[in-house]
């Protein structure tokens, strides 16, 4: 019995980001093309309300709605929340208010940022107007933000910064000069702190010293490599550590002929399932040190460590005779 020592779990930042592409469909296409042209379009729902931002389908009747209407560029804050510490990618780098703004002529409110000196300068019911971005390309950020505005709903003095303010929405055909915006890129980024947990930490720390430690299930006696702290079959904790390997048997494999974007490995290479001696299941790794077309099921292999690597760089033949199929057929 070799109980697992207590160790602090590893942790590291994990950033997940991707530039998703978005097809807009007819209504969002008109809305974003309009923003590029300093025009805000809503859509008229079956009950006569004008929805801004527009929806493709009626939230009450579920019918398709396509009647576009232009609304004003001034509006009224319907509710708000102060954001004292803006994060990356938010509309303003300095503290600002998140606001819901009902634009003049609209019946629903749009979420955006309000540039205000502090929370004391923001209140529900205050009048605001659009501050357009200098460069507009058909995205919601074409509205840089909102700013405080003195003037009644639909008032003419609101028009200093743009055309078309009116309290009553005006029907619009959604057509604008230039090419319509039909798609956008929506970059997403998520920041995590990742921890593999205590069982994996014990495994990873041992692996750094070139030892492969599994954990044995107290009930079925099978050895999990890598360990996960519990046996998924028996549903009990595993805490008896067992060193496995270093040698093992290739139980199955494939020859990879297409280069993966994020991997610096020349093709073809062999990706295999390797059952380390004493392990209850195979782990996955690259097999090298012989021509790729000579890799076979039953091949005996051992790990090759790269300097400073946390895991074996690959596995190479040991030179032993191949293992009998019967010895590894449960470990494919």
């Amino acid at each position, binding site marked *: 019995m070799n109980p697992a020592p207590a160790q602090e779990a590893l942790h590291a930042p994990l950033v997940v980001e991707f530039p998703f592409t978005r097809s807009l469909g007819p209504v969002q296409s008109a809305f974003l093309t309009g923003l590029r042209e300093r025009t805000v379009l809503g859509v008229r729902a079956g009950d006569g309300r004008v929805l801004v931002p527009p929806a493709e*389908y009626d939230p009450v009747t*579920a019918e398709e709605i396509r009647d576009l209407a232009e609304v004003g560029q001034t509006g009224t804050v319907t509710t708000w929340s102060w954001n004292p510490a803006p994060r990356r990618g938010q509309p303003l780098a300095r503290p600002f208010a998140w606001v819901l703004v009902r634009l003049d002529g609209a019946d629903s409110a749009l979420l955006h940022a309000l540039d205000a000196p502090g929370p004391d300068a923001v209140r529900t019911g205050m009048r605001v107007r659009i501050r357009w971005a200098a460069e507009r390309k058909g995205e919601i950020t074409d509205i840089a933000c909102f700013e405080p505005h003195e003037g009644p709903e639909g008032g003419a003095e609101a028009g200093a910064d743009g055309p078309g303010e009116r309290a009553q929405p005006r029907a619009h055909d959604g057509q604008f000069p230039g090419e319509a915006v039909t798609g956008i890129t929506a970059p997403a980024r998520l920041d995590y702190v990742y921890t593999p947990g205590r069982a994996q930490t014990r495994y990873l720390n041992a692996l750094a010293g070139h030892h492969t430690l599994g954990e044995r299930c107290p009930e079925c006696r099978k050895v999990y490599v890598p360990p996960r702290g519990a046996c998924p079959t028996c549903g009990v904790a595993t805490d008896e550590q067992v060193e496995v390997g270093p040698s093992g048997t290739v139980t199955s494999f494939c020859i990879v002929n297409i280069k993966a974007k994020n991997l610096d490995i020349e093709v073809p290479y062999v990706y295999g399932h390797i059952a380390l001696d004493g392990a209850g299941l195979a782990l996955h790794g690259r097999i090298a040190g012989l021509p790729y077309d000579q890799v076979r099921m039953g091949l005996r292999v051992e790990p090759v460590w790269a300097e400073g690597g946390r895991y074996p760089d690959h596995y190479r033949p040991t030179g032993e005779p191949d293992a009998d199929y019967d010895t590894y057929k449960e470990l494919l």
Partner: protein
Amino acid sequence: MNGTVSKEPVAVVGIGQTRHVAARRDVSIAGLVREAAVRALEDAGLTWADIDAVVIGKAPDFFEGVMMPELYLADALGAVGKPMLRVHTAGSVGGSTALVASNLVSARVHRTVLTLAFEKQSESNAMWGLSLPVPFQQPLLAGAGGFFAPHVRAYMHRTAAPDHIGSLVAFKDRRNALKNPYAHLHEEDITLEKVRASPMLWDPIRYSETCPSSDGACAMVLTDREGAGRAPHPPAWVHGGAMRSEPTLFAGKDAVSPRAGSDCAADVYRQAGITDPRREIDAVEMYVPFSWYEPMWLENLGFAEEGEGWKLTESGATELDGDLPVNPSGGVLSTNPIGASGMLRFAEAALQVRGQAGDHQVEGARKALGHAYGGGSQFFSMWLVGAEPPAS
């Protein structure tokens, strides 16, 4: 009855799908799901007001980067003021979504349920979504094909299957797709030689033996016995449905023929009173993303003895005119909007027993199996549908 309350029989009265393609840049995600839903409602002769609840499924949110898309899609699916449920079980999700909807009708929670699944793969990159760089861990050394290829090799070794079986499946499914106007791939000039000559990507899996990446949606309207009586077209009746799961990796896992898959099938056959699936089932729509999975699942689902699945494929039994047609629609190998792929299997099985499969109709099909799996052979969902109501 012995004092127990019987289940409500469940009927599939509406089926709709999009014409699946690599990229639907003309519609939003809402517009895409809407197309399938409207077609299913039209088929059922119903309107939005007739729907009591909506059950929607898709694969991971990372695939399009819209977190909880069901919230944004409520308007498009007429779900405002109604219960809306989201299901997620990786690639099997289309099947398990239909089963959740079916169970709501069967348990008499709701009378008429719209169920729907989708994927708009063109908005992202599924390969990226499945291979996030996890700290401390060795990067995944191969994509989805590379993950499954060693299991295919293990199957070939275990059964001594000859190398050409995988190509036969791909050639069959691509020819079937030519008869299905909704299928993504329509390779008019496909030949067996072309499949065999296609590049080996993850040996033993060739390029032509892999599925495409598609934008698409599938929807069904499920209803109770009374609803079926009002339907304008013959319904398909649910005779059995089940889901099973197991870990992707565990000591003792049989990745070639997972226990969860065979248990799931056995449960469905028990519910449907099937004792000899090979003889009693007229058509099968199974989830075959890589061609070798046809013989593997033929064994796992009890259509062939262990080691004999490839012989069934080789014999031509699984061809459209064979005695056990598999994937008459062209299957996942011809159309793969991931989240919808499982529901397409379920819906195509229902189309067969309704006699509405068009040019890929299996003549006289009375009972059909829809099958889906997902994750690393981790989730399984299946249903068996028939042309007649189940004996109660």
